[in-house]
């Protein structure tokens, strides 16, 4: 059973790698990433996102051909470990062109998320 759970946790991004259980989503927000189509550059440093992400309420608020970033924060109810998932995509009419998904496991974006929660 333990091996199956461990294997399952490898396949699911929102599963805790320590406890092998599904983490609960406790934050979800859409942001605008000021990069236009054809000029996307991948950034792994969390500081870049802290400086450049602009909070929006819906995709309609994002100008044409500008990238969007969906942030989700997960927390393990057993061990308290948290994980932040950034999904970067280009909204194109009613579709989305996915660029990449980045994970932060060491609380790099926690203060940014808390600051945005207050707004």
């Amino acid at each position: 059973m333990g091996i199956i759970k461990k294997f399952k946790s490898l396949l699911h991004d929102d599963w805790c790698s320590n406890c092998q259980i599904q983490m609960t989503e406790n934050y979800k927000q859409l942001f605008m990433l000021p990069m236009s189509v054809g000029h996307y550059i991948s950034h792994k440093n969390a500081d870049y996102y802290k400086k450049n992400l602009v909070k929006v309420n819906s995709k309609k608020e994002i100008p044409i051909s500008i990238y969007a970033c969906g942030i989700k924060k997960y927390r393990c109810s057993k061990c308290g470990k948290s994980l932040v998932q950034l999904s970067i995509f280009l909204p194109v009419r009613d579709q989305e062109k996915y660029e990449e998904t980045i994970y932060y496991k060491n609380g790099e974006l926690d203060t940014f998320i808390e600051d945005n929660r207050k707004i």
Partner: protein
Amino acid sequence: MENKKIKKINLLYLLGYIFIPMILITICYVISYNFFKEGTMCVILLLGSPFISIMWWIFGGKIIFKKGKKRLEKMFKEQGFVQNNTFYGDGTEVIVDINAGKIGLQFFWNPSESYIISAKRIGKAWVDDGKGGAGFLEGSSCVSFLFTIDNIKVRVYTFKSNQRFKMDSNYILTGISKADKMVNVLETARNNDK
């Protein structure tokens, strides 16, 4: 300059581009047949002229078009306009100064002319996603944005391929996004031009 009629193709240039190398090859072959039936000169005439012609067809147009693009960008700056948006399409370059409402155009088949026109002259701008086929064959091989200037239609490709892609493929979505952006830019420039 601003009211100059848009000419997408210079017929003389187009014909010259295709036929001058052919004429050169024919002349070289005739000279070789009549005067140099063997020897170094014969080799130069028989192999050199087709080589030069092929090089011209592959690179000549691109080099001339590149010079035209540079000239247009220089002219745009010299006239005090800001290059807010530049789109290098397949055979057409479009430069837009959104705030001043000015558009710069350079065409591959008319490289001697660079146009800087008022955005007011744009009648209509729209996106063609090239969607075709039905069922599982539905898809596109090209995406473009189009606009009319004094009823002359200008098409600029944002994506072009010899394969057909599904409408939700990354290539098509990127092409549509670029085309949507350019249509938006052109319409904003037209509204800003007073």
